[in-house]
């Protein structure tokens, strides 16, 4: 039993898992609030990452300013998608809505490849030190940052839904749209805000991944991994989605461990 290796993998899995959890959280948010299965979740990560990269690399904006700008952009972008594309699709069968989000993901991917090219780009350096020593294990600073950011976002979302007025309105709409409407909640705005928050949170995850691995079209793969995470955690539970993401991250790395140590019959 190669313990050193296993522990490194578990740490890796935890870091990646919290990222999956964050993305799964935004996916479940859209599903709970608007009953829409969003196949374009990975592309939202990608858009956030590319926009941030463009601001930092092309326009030489410092990180502490570029990041909030990206978030504002994604917020507006999320609202725009909901209003332009998804509002006319309210009431259509689920399969049509799925196809629309799939079509959106195709359009986004191709547009990003056009605007930014097919080559992956390294992210401009954000931190001065490369790795941080924690409990005798070397963790990259960016990984530590991503852990902190992911946990902060989860806490932020939990607070939002429990304590703020808008969060309460969203939970009410998710529970029963008609009753919520009759109580004066604007269901349309709730939908728009759900998309906006989901886009913003995904963008943060996208930027974190980009800082670690560079920006490339491989980021949309996160959009597919979101499905098992959401299913594991339960589609109706945001906290469950987080847990599901962490489990998937850990499972991936444990599988790699088992594969490399035990599964060689050649």
């Amino acid at each position, binding site marked *: 039993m*190669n313990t*050193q*290796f296993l522990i*490194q*993998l578990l740490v*890796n899995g935890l870091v*990646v898992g919290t990222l999956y959890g964050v993305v799964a959280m935004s996916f479940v948010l859209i599903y709970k609030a608007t009953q829409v299965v969003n196949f374009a979740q990975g592309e939202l990560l990608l858009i956030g990452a590319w926009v941030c990269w463009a601001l930092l690399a092309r326009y030489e904006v410092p990180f502490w300013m570029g990041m909030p700008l990206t978030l504002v952009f994604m917020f507006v972008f999320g609202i725009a998608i909901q209003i332009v594309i998804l509002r006319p699709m309210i009431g259509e069968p689920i399969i049509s809505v799925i196809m629309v989000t799939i079509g959106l993901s195709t359009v986004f991917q191709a547009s990003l*490849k056009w605007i930014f090219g*097919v*080559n*992956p780009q*390294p992210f*401009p*350096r954000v931190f001065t030190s*490369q*790795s941080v020593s924690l409990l005798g294990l*070397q963790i*990259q600073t960016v990984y530590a940052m991503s852990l902190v950011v992911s946990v902060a976002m989860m806490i932020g979302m939990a607070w939002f839904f429990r304590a703020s007025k808008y969060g309460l309105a969203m939970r009410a709409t998710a529970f029963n749209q008609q009753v919520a409407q009759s109580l004066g909640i604007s269901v349309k705005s709730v939908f728009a805000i759900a998309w906006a928050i989901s886009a913003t949170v995904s963008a943060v995850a996208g930027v974190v*991944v980009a800082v*670690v*691995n*560079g920006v*490339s*079209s*491989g980021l949309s*793969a996160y959009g597919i991994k979101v499905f098992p995470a959401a299913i594991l955690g339960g589609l109706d539970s945001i906290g469950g989605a987080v847990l599901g993401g962490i489990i998937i991250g850990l499972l*991936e*790395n444990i599988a*790699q*461990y088992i594969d*490399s140590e035990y599964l*060689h019959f*050649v």
Partner: protein
Amino acid sequence: MTMKSLLSGVSLALLLGCAGTAAQAQIPIGHLADYSGGTSDVGTPYGQAVADTFAWVNKNGGVGGKQLKIDTNDYGYQVPRAIALYKKWSGSEKVAAIMGWGTADTEALTGFLAQDKIPDISASYAAALTDPEGASGKAKPAPYNFFYGPSYSDAMRAMLIWAAEDWKAKGKSGKPKFAHMGANHPYPNAPKAAGEALAAELGFEVLPPLVFALTPGDYSAQCLSLKSSGANYAYLGNTAASNVSVLKACKTAAKTAGDAANGVIFPLRTAVAWGGNAPGMKTVMEISKMSDPTGKVYRPVHYIAAVCSAMYLKEALDWAVKNGGATGENVAKGFYQKKDWVPAGMEGVCNPSTWTEKDHRGTLKVDLYRSKISGSTDGDLNDLMTKGTIKLEKVKAVELPRKPEWFGW
């Protein structure tokens, strides 16, 4: 639907009009390129080079007085689209040759090419394409497949020979450990068997291969496996984008100083890189000007390899036109005409190559280069090359013996 049929009707009319005006005295060539698919990071410079070279040839009089008509298509590394394009090119207006691209589709087309007698000069250098008659028993017959440069297997063999010498030169004892890393896909898998066999022969301990995808991503898990298995030498079989992801992840896992790609050994298909000291480099720069009038863009190694491939085809076409016309059969014969052949104007750049009816291994000389990186690699590739932050230095030129046991795999 009306709008769409209107649009397609207009396009059809345009297309028919264009086809009608095509001159008879033109030699059609098919060109498969990957500008948007899984290998687009290397497909883009290669495809650009092929287009530039043939544009340069046309500008300087064409082939035997006839202009070349290149039909460039981006097939996105999808085999079905390549096959559909092939059907177009082997139909009524048969092409004289195809500039192919990827391993998966080139291997799929071998049978069709032999049947329709159309030579394919591919950018896939799989050893399975080097056996025209199937005599080796290890590959199916591929009489109409050609490529310039050492095959993946031969390149891997050369690197292993270097690695064995390097291990001894460093004074280390015992068996060095070797691992093959690549995607589960024809392109990275092509040299795996050959490499692992030679590694065992040379005294390496061959570790189980590691799998990572062709798309860039997070490969820290694979790097940790590599580190824990204690490999001394690893062969990264994928294309640039995903290889870079692995190198970055492994750099962190191994805690080495310097930038990720520093010290990586790779085989160069041509004797020199861009800007190197060779008489043929002038021709390459002229060709580059076809799409870059400023002459300042740094052309990667794939660009120059593509220029060589295209120039070989051009000279084969020259011979064919003089000896019975530019048909696929004659072009293939044109490849067998010269020994230690270097196209005119490419001296010092393209390695001398010989193709025969029985052996399509053009050249067995592998030039090994090492990348030396002396600073941060964030920034434009052109600037980095001109400033000397990235340098390619020649390590060794390995001339492999033309062994029959190594033929076809």
